[in-house]
């Protein structure tokens, strides 16, 4: 601790901002000693989180998720495909994560973000391996037609914990998704029908009789951390992620089962006890996120009724 005195003098002499830019890690460590962060959060507090359902009318399901400044827009488009022979009753889900140039100064047209494909893969893994969606629910006609759900998540503003916000937006978009009424036309193609038309034209076979939603089970929620020395910082922002490079992401489903755990390198060796703490924190966060999602669904039902 003998260095802290010298550092203290240095802080006095220098402008706060300059010190923050020149010695970011030392700047942070001074805060960590007080169990605080420069944005006034305690170490284990997440930023304000909100979910809005149905912001984009042209998508079959959509959601906007915000964690602090990090903003994600997820949209789902349903298209019809012929299921593969091995699983004639299964639909399919294709997931892609985009970082358009608007989201951050480091992304420009022709210079895409390196993390985008990584997060794409993580999202696909988390959503498919959690078993949140029963692919049989996406079936239309056995062996002939099934839904292909294209989920695209766009980062509109990037300020850390991108995967957490992307997963939240993706899950919310699936819970907003409504499967439209469709029938077979004369050429054997599946076409949408409006509700009134569906009743009137009894000659055509209505494949999907009513608008319905998917049943989501084992919904995955995630929480990211940065580790520095003995400290665990929950829900890091972009600055924290760039200064302390040991990132851990824990994905749990609602019953507390571990869906995935990422610790892609970094300086700090994550001890098992640290990881246990992380899992416990992620479990609590999952409950919080579930409540935020349920409230958004309730709001939407109240609006529509």
């Amino acid at each position, binding site marked *: 601790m003998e260095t802290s005195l010298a550092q203290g003098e240095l802080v006095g002499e220098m402008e706060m901002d300059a010190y923050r830019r020149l010695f970011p890690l030392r700047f942070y460590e001074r805060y960590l000693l007080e169990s605080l962060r420069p944005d006034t959060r305690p170490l284990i507090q997440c930023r304000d989180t909100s979910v809005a359902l149905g912001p984009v009318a042209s998508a079959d399901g*959509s959601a906007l998720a915000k964690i602090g400044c990090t903003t994600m827009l997820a949209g789902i488009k349903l298209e019809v495909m*012929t299921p593969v022979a091995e699983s004639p009753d299964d639909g399919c889900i294709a997931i892609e994560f985009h970082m358009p140039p*608007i989201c951050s100064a480091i992304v420009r047209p022709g210079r895409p973000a390196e993390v985008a494909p990584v997060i794409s893969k993580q999202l696909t893994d988390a959503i498919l391996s959690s078993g949140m969606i029963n692919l049989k629910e996406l079936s239309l006609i056995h062996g002939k037609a099934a839904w292909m759900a294209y989920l695209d998540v766009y980062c509109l503003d990037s300020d850390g914990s991108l995967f957490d916000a992307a997963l939240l937006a993706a899950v919310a978009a699936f819970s907003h998704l409504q499967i439209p009424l469709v029938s077979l036309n004369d050429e054997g193609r599946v*076409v949408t029908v409006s509700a009134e038309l569906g009743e009137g034209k009894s000659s055509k076979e209505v494949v999907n009789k009513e608008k319905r939603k998917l049943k989501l089970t084992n919904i995955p929620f995630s929480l990211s951390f940065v580790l520095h020395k003995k400290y665990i910082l929950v829900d890091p922002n972009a600055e924290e992620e760039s200064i302390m490079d040991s990132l851990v992401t824990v994905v749990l489903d609602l019953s507390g089962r571990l869906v995935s755990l990422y610790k892609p390198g970094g300086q700090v060796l994550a001890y098992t006890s640290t990881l246990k703490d992380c899992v416990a924190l992620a479990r609590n966060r999952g409950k919080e996120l579930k409540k935020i999602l349920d409230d958004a669904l309730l709001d939407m039902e109240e609006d529509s009724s």
Partner: protein
Amino acid sequence: MGVEAAMAGKAANAPTTYSPSPSQKPARPIFEDVDWVRADGRNFHECRPAFMKTGAANAASGSAYAEFGNTKVIVSVFGPRESKKAMLYSDIGRLNCNVSFTTFAAPTRGQGSDNKDFSSMLHKALEGAIILESFPKTTVDVFALVLESGGSDLPVVVSCASLALADAGIMMYDLVAAVSVSCIRKSLIIDPSSDEESYQDGSLMITCMPSRNEVTQLTLTGEWSTPKIHEAMELCLDACSKLGKLLRTCLRDAASV
């Protein structure tokens, strides 16, 4: 059997899909009547309700979100930053524009790729309004993402971009307001929706600096008669000056909070 082979196999197996919406549009509906009404109940010379807000994205130097009816657009401005080394020395600043769409912006799923056409139109619409001398040797990036395409996309992008530039503190002679008019048979309708655009015989877009009464861009496509062009221009300019006031109010509100 390497990863590449597996990837190639995956790509080959990717199922072909199609959108279930009926491919045939209902026959040209009501425009034949003399007194048809617009699907959303607007008057021919009435714009859609507009909502605009600056400071939509924190990571950018300046940004704005605009919603005109179902058209939803977000624009971020970055910079000024150092121009690429490869570029020749220039004592005025450079403007770099890019417009892209989300894959779910339109009724049928798109590729979500850059729209080169719109990017260059946006560049030319803004160029004249920005005081490029105020940031020599540097580049300002203007990036737009159309979240939902509900018609008159380019005019909304242009107006939104000028707000974002103002939010970023880039010096301009004036804000740029943009409005388009569609000509369907004998009628002129302002601020057309996607459906109306798909039936139009001709279209006119004006981007202008309302308080200086200067037009930065004018595009005219399709069939027009000279008197109709004059009428459409009057309509556009009038709407631009009203939109200009809206843009100003939006900036003033943001500054007073």
